[in-house]
């Protein structure tokens, strides 16, 4: 039983009803809460143990113990969440909102102050900026 | 024939081709061929045959400089697997129906799964 133009009904219905198209980018997109957008570090609990660096499949995270920095290359991270799972301190989380496209592959670096284990910290840590708010951009 | 568990049946080289032919005659499909290079000395080559929901795996152990006979004259579709093994592992498969001359994937490295020194 062949028909010609059997799609007509659907086509005409589509023609008169509202298109399925989103209004992005004119209106922001709302993401479901589980969306894996990018990894953020809560630098407070981080001990710069480097577990995340070692477990990250593409090697997007660099933990510099000596320099006291934790850095992520958002252009290398595959949002797998393995670092989040592995972090012993549970200080990583993966949240909605993707790394913005840009013409440079910037690395976000967060200064992490780890209280040296033997002695208490010399200086009380000033309130740390959140990773995604004030990243230090480095090539 | 030696059963390694997991339905893997170890075959000696001389009983290999007749067994494969038998499978073909009984209308089994060729499921896959897989090569692994273990202990820096031997290739373990596994041939899987399927029929309906059944599966059996034949296992050949091949020394690194030994040759394996191609089954591509029994199963045409083995050509892809065998060329792949030759290109990636350097396994000597002889008498292939179609020899791609290591041009299946056209990679830069030779036999990346078996490092030069190892071979």
């Amino acid at each position, binding site marked *: 039983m062949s028909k010609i133009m059997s799609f007509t009904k659907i086509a005409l219905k589509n023609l008169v009803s509202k298109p399925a*198209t*989103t209004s992005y980018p004119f209106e922001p997109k709302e993401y479901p809460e589980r969306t894996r957008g990018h990894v953020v570090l809560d630098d407070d609990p981080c001990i710069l143990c480097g577990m995340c660096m070692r477990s990250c499949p*593409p090697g997007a995270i660099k933990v510099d113990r000596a320099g006291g920095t934790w850095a992520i290359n958002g*252009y*290398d991270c595959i949002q797998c969440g393995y670092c989040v799972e592995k972090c012993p301190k549970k200080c990583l989380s993966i949240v909605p909102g993707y790394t913005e*496209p840009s*013409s440079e592959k910037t690395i976000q670096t967060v200064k992490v102050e780890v209280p040296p284990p033997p002695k208490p910290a010399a200086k009380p840590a000033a309130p740390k900026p959140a990773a995604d708010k004030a990243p230090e951009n480095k090539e | 024939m030696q059963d390694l568990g997991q339905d893997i049946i170890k075959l000696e080289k001389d009983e290999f081709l007749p067994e494969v032919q038998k499978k073909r005659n009984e209308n089994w499909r060729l499921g896959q061929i897989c090569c692994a290079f273990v202990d820096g000395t031997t290739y373990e080559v596994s041939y899987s045959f399927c029929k309906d929901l059944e599966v059996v795996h034949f296992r050949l152990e091949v020394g690194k400089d030994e040759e394996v006979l191609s089954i591509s004259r029994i199963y045409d579709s083995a050509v892809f697997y065998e060329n792949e093994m030759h290109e990636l592992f350097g396994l000597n498969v002889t008498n292939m129906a179609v020899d791609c001359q290591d041009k299946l994937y*056209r990679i830069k490295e030779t036999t*990346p799964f078996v490092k030069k020194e190892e071979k």
Partner: protein
Amino acid sequence: MNSIHKSPWLLHYDGSSCNGCDIEVLACTTPVYDVERFGVVNTGNPMHADIFLVTGGINTQNAEVVKQIYNQMPNPKVVLAIGTCACTGGVFKECYNIQGGVDTVIPVDIYVPGCAARPESIIDGVVKAVALFKEKSKDGDFVEVDEVPGDEEAETEETVAAVETEGGEE
């Protein structure tokens, strides 16, 4: 080159991606994201394209292909690397057959990260690319890519050196 502003035609090439990013690129053209709203046409023909979307990393075989397609596109043109693989090689960068991101063979203008890159992100990338056309002139920076650029520094030097003289047989 503001005219491209309203009519960016794109060409998609799948380097060695896992399809994740490809189907997201394709999804951009389908009803829910419908990039044709912005005048984007998925041309499939390098000769007609303004924007080159590459997904996936670069391997031995596709390096030549990517270069060739790039060279076939008329100026002005921009290149978008879509997805983590195209940006850096991603999870596959340690594979024996992966050279790295797209920028190892042709100059990349915009990196769109994500694994897979989301349609929204791709749209953002295209919007940024379109903005770039304002800076690119028609004949000025025609770059013919012949050699695989080595390190970053050498790359810029080489591309400047390779500016083509225009005008065919005149």
